[in-house]
C-alpha cells in the first residue's frame, strides 16, 4: 500500500517537474506561429510569416551561419583537446595531476560573465573580438571540460589489456589507438561532442562580449532582437533552435538504435567467408 503511494507520488512529482521544465518551451512554439505583430500568448491567428521574416532577414541568416560554424568548429576542437586531456589525466603519471585536472575543469566553474569580460579585454588587444576564430577559441575552452569528463569516465572503465592484445597482434601505438581505444570509447567521445555542440550553440554570455555589428551568434542576435523590438521572429528562431537541439539528440539516439538493429539483423559473416573462398 505504502509502496503504491510512494510510487504514485514519485510519478506525479516527475510529471509536474516535466511540465514545469517544458511549459515555457512549449509556449514559444505556438507563439511563433502567431499572425499578430507582437509577442503574445496565446497567439492570435495562425501564420508562418515570422519564419519567413527570419529567412528573409540577412542579419538573422548571418547569425545562424555564425552559430553553426562556431558550434561545429568548437566541438571538433574541443573533442580533439578533450580526448587528449582525458588520456593524459587518466593515464599520465606526472606531478600536480590533480592541479591540472582542476585547470581543465575550471572553465565550467568560473562564472561565464568573468570569462566573457576577461576574454573581451584580452581579445580586444589581439583583435579577436567579433571574429569566428575568437569565438571558436572561447567556446572550445568552455566545452573541453565536458568532453574531458565524459571521455575520462569512458577511459576509466576501458580495459587496457585490449591495447596489449592489439600490440601483440601487430598493431603499433597509432593503429592501436585508432582501431581499438577510440572505437571502444566512442560513445563517451560522442556524448562529449554533443555536449560541446550544445554548449556553443546556446552560449550567450561570453558571446555577447565578443559580438558586435560585424559578427554575432544566433543567441546574441535573439537577445538584442528582444531588447530592440518585440517581434515574434524571436519566437520563430527559438522554435527552430529548439528543433536543432532536439534533432542532434534524436540523431544520436537514432544512430545508436540503427547500429543495434544492424548488428542484430546482419547476416552471419560466415556466409561472406564461404563466398570469398569458393
Amino acid at each position, binding site marked *: 500500500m505504502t509502496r503504491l503511494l510512494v510510487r504514485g507520488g514519485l510519478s506525479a512529482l516527475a510529471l509536474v517537474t516535466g511540465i514545469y521544465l517544458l511549459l515555457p518551451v512549449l509556449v514559444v512554439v505556438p507563439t511563433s506561429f502567431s499572425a499578430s505583430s507582437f509577442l503574445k500568448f496565446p497567439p492570435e491567428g495562425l501564420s508562418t510569416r515570422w519564419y519567413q521574416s527570419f529567412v528573409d532577414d540577412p542579419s538573422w541568416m548571418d547569425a545562424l551561419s555564425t552559430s553553426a560554424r562556431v558550434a561545429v568548429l568548437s566541438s571538433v576542437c574541443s573533442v580533439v583537446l578533450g580526448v587528449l586531456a582525458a588520456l593524459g589525466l587518466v593515464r599520465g603519471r606526472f606531478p600536480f595531476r590533480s592541479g591540472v585536472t582542476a585547470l581543465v575543469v575550471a572553465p565550467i566553474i568560473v562564472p561565464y560573465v568573468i570569462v566573457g569580460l576577461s576574454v573581451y579585454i584580452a581579445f580586444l588587444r589581439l583583435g579577436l573580438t567579433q571574429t569566428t576564430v575568437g569565438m571558436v577559441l572561447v567556446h572550445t575552452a568552455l566545452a573541453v571540460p565536458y568532453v574531458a569528463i565524459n571521455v575520462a569516465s569512458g577511459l576509466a572503465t576501458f*580495459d587496457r*589489456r*585490449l591495447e*596489449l*592484445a*592489439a*600490440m*601483440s*597482434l*601487430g*598493431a*603499433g601505438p597509432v*593503429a*592501436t589507438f585508432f*582501431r*581499438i581505444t577510440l*572505437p*571502444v570509447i*566512442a560513445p563517451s567521445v560522442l556524448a562529449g561532442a554533443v555536449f560541446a555542440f550544445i554548449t556553443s550553440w546556446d552560449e550567450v554570455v561570453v558571446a555577447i562580449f565578443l559580438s558586435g555589428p560585424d559578427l554575432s551568434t544566433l543567441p546574441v542576435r535573439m537577445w538584442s532582437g528582444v531588447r530592440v523590438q518585440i517581434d515574434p521572429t524571436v519566437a520563430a528562431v527559438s522554435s527552430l533552435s529548439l528543433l536543432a537541439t532536439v534533432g542532434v539528440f534524436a540523431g544520436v539516439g537514432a544512430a545508436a538504435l540503427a547500429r543495434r538493429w544492424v*548488428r542484430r539483423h*546482419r*547476416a*552471419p*559473416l*560466415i556466409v*561472406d*567467408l*564461404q563466398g*570469398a*573462398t569458393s
Partner: protein
Amino acid sequence: MTSTDAVTGAPIGIAGVTKRYADSVALDDVTLDVRGGEFLTLLGASGSGKSTLLNIIAGFLEPTEGAVSVDGRDITKVPPHRRGLGMVFQHYALFPHMSVADNVAFPLRRQKVARRDIPGRVRDALAVVQLEHLAGRRPSELSGGQQQRVALARAIVARPRVLLMDEPLGALDKLLREQLQLEIRRLHQELGITFVFVTHDQDEALAMSDRIALLRDGSIVQVGSPQSLYERPNCRYTAEFVGASNLFRGTADGGVLVDEVTGVRLRVPGTGRGAVCVLVRPERMHVGARDVTVPPDCDVAHGIVEDCIYLGSSRRVEVRLTGGRTVVLRTDVPRGGDEVRHGADVTVWWRVDDAAVLADDPAGTADPEPSGVLAAQH
C-alpha cells in the same frame, strides 16, 4: 595458403633477466632456454614473477637487465607489435566492438596480409577451435570458454612461431578448464610451435607441459619435465608446490635419518652427514594392519588412522604417526575391505627407493598448496 604450411617453433633465450622496481625485485637474474616447439610452463605462486617474465618476453615490460632472444635474434629492444609472437590473456581481451571474425582478422589486417586471403585464413583458424559457426557473433554474445577459444584462434591466425599464454584458463570453471587443457595440448601438437604457458595451478602444469619452470620470489627454483619435478624435486619448495607430499626431516648420519618429530628411522643410503628432508609421495606409501609383514627394502612407521576418504578409484588415508606428524596416503581400495578405518592402529611403509632425499631449506614452505597437510607443523 592454408594452415598446413610448415611453421616450426622458435627457441626463446632468456639470459640474465632482472626486473627491478623502485622498492622490489620482480625477477632476479633469470636464465632459461625454451626449446623450439616445446610446451613450457612457468609455474609459481602469485608474486613469483612468472607473469612478469611472460610480459618481458611479449615486450610489454622492459627488463632492467638481461636480454631476450627469439630464434637467436635479440628482441630486448623490439616493441611488442614487431615481435610477431601470439599472446592469449586470462580475460580473453577480445575487441568488444568487432565480430568474432573481425577479431580473428585483426592481426592479418595489421600485417598486411592480402585481402583475398583473409576470409579463408580466418575460417581456418576458427575451424581449429571449432567455432566457425559463431564468426558473425560479438564477443559479448559468447560464453567464457568460447571467448577464450576465439582468443586462441586470433593468437594463432598469423602463424606466430611462439604462443604466449598468461593464465588463459584462470577465469573458467573446472570442467571447462579441463576441456580446454586438452584442446590447448592438441593445438600444440598440431601447430608444432613453441608454447609458453603461465599458471599457478600445479595440476594444470603437470597435465599440459613438456617442461615446467618453477618460479619463486623472482627466481627459477627448478626446470624439468613434469615427472622429474614430481618425482625428483631438487628442494623442499618444489616438493611441496608440485603435488601433495609427506616430508620427514632431521640430521642424517651414517645413511640413516631419524625424523625429529616422530623418531621414525629412514634409510638414506649415500647421504652424507647433515640436515636433510625426505619426501615420500602419497601414492608411494602403503598402509596395513599393525601386525602386517613389511618387505625388507621398506621403511616403517606406525600411527592411528585419522581419516579415510573413499574416492572411487582410490582412497585417501590420513594417518597420525606416533609422535605427531600426519601423513597422507593414496592407495587402492582392497576388494574385501581391510582394517584401515577411522581410529585403527596401523602400519605405514614405503620402499626406500621411493623416498627422495632433499636439501632442507627451512624457509621453504610453499604458501598456495595446503593439500600437502603435514610437512613442518611443529
